């Protein structure tokens, strides 16, 4: 595996003003050794070994990429330095700027989670009511058509001066961005439930509440999850913009701040964290979906 490339790193001291080079070298060595040990001993490691072996091509590519990056920045400085920091500079951010980064992560997660949960809940309830009740549909459908397609970002200026705090304004906007796709897809899900299911339930003595809770909603759930997924994407975009513009906390704000100080390593570090968080959120959503929709076959694996 990529061991050969990596071993030399500990000795690269050309750019000796970069700290953490030593720790990067040790880390790379440990990872490479684990990979080597894992690859050779895969047969004795059971499940872990098999998983490792399956990912071996990716590990190699990753190793090569890191090495090229290291060589291109730290060793030969082919890439202009402030914009393209070497890997050790990013590690340095994670160790030295950890408290601030953690604060930002915490603020982002809090804002995102609050807005998303409110938006998803309201969207789901609205979608079910529109899909179920003709009267509710009559009143809400035009509103939805008029306001829904408007990008939630268009509300930014209004929201920031009408709401008491930038935090509540952002929560509202994230909820709005989430709510629209969730509403539309829940509604279309409920509306597309086959009448035969209702017939069966009614002949078996089901009351209207049973029809909504035990027939319409479970049948619409696959659509609801598509809406939740789309809402998640829309709300991430809004979160970052809101943090950059109004909220003085969170990863979006951290990015902005890092750019202001030309701290590019901090930017990359924050980007990586953000990507992990967003990907993690989607993984979580898909895990919930897979649990609730085990009866469906051929669902997309995330």
């Amino acid at each position, binding site marked *: 595996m990529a061991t050969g490339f990596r071993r030399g790193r500990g000795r690269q001291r050309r750019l000796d003003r970069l700290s953490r080079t030593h720790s990067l070298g040790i880390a790379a060595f440990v990872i490479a050794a684990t990979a080597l040990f894992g690859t050779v001993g895969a047969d004795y490691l059971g499940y872990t070994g098999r998983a490792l072996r399956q990912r071996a091509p990716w590990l190699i590519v990753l190793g090569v990429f890191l090495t090229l990056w290291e060589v291109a920045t730290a060793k030969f400085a082919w890439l202009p330095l402030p914009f393209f920091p070497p890997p050790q500079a990013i590690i340095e951010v994670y160790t030295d700027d950890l408290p601030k980064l953690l604060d930002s992560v915490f603020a982002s997660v809090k804002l995102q989670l609050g807005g998303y949960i409110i938006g998803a809940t309201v969207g789901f309830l609205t979608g079910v009511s529109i899909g179920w009740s003709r009267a509710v549909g009559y009143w809400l459908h035009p509103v939805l058509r008029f306001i829904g397609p408007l990008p939630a970002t268009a509300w930014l200026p209004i929201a920031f001066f009408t709401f008491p705090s930038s935090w509540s304004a952002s929560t509202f906007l994230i909820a709005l961005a989430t709510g629209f796709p969730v509403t539309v897809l829940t509604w279309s899900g409920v509306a597309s439930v*086959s009448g*035969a*299911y209702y*017939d*069966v*339930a*009614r*002949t*078996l*003595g*089901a*009351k209207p509440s*049973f029809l909504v809770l*035990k*027939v319409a909603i*479970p*049948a619409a*759930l696959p659509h609801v999850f598509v809406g939740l997924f789309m809402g998640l994407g829309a709300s991430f975009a809004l979160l970052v913009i809101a943090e950059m513009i109004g909220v003085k906390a969170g990863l979006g704000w951290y990015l902005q701040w890092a750019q202001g100080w030309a701290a590019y390593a901090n930017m990359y570090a924050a980007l990586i964290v953000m990507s992990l968080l967003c990907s993690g959120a989607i993984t979580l959503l898909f895990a919930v979906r897979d649990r609730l*929709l*085990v*009866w*469906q*076959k051929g669902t997309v694996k995330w």
Partner: protein
Amino acid sequence: MVAALAEVATHHAAGAALDIEQVSHAFDIDGAELPVLSDVSIAVEPGEFVALLGPSGCGKSTLLRLVAGLDKPKAGSLREDEIRIVRPHPSRVVVFQDPTLFPWRTVWDNVALGLEAQGILKSQRQRVDDALDLVGLSSFRNAYPQQLSGGMAQRVALARALVNDPKILVLDEPLGKLDSLTRITMQAELVSLWQRKGFTTLLVTHDAEEALVLANRVIVFSERPARVKADIRVDRPYPRHRGDPYLADLRRQILGLLGLDATW
């Protein structure tokens, strides 16, 4: 299976009378009226087993929907034990032509649907197990509908109906998708279940032989719009034999009514 039959049969629900009086029905298709039932009158006695035969598309399923209370007739009336049918009630359970199991529920939960909807599942879970035993699908209780074959799905749909102890059991070609062997077994099960429990049965079928093996009475419909073309009593004791010359004679007569004398 026999033990299970005895179990289910302990919940007594005798059959109800069903009066279909001068019922006519029509659908609107693109503004044009499509007459489907024309002045249909059938008086079904409590505990009777009535088979409905007729050409495809003549309106049999439509009549069953009216009996279930899912639709209202354009003219005429339907009554269960002298009470007008205006909405569905679990005393009249329908096994639809399509099994329409709920794909998000396991087999057991599908069968439990009626008891759950009526809010009595907690105290009556045993009935679900018995009904599953009855159709021979106990080992599939945790399977999802898409893991079943077409015939198994129909058996689940049958169990889902039987678990409710209906007074009138309405069956729309429930054995249509079964292989001939399972079909014969299920026919025998159906007869013995009906004899034990005494519910009134209304069975739509395409198969004249099936109608004659199972029913007290066979009603033959005309082409759409359906009218009652013949009302034939089948006075033969159960279990009936397929080779019975009396039944063979009736069968010829019925196929003649359905316009098949040339090929027969």
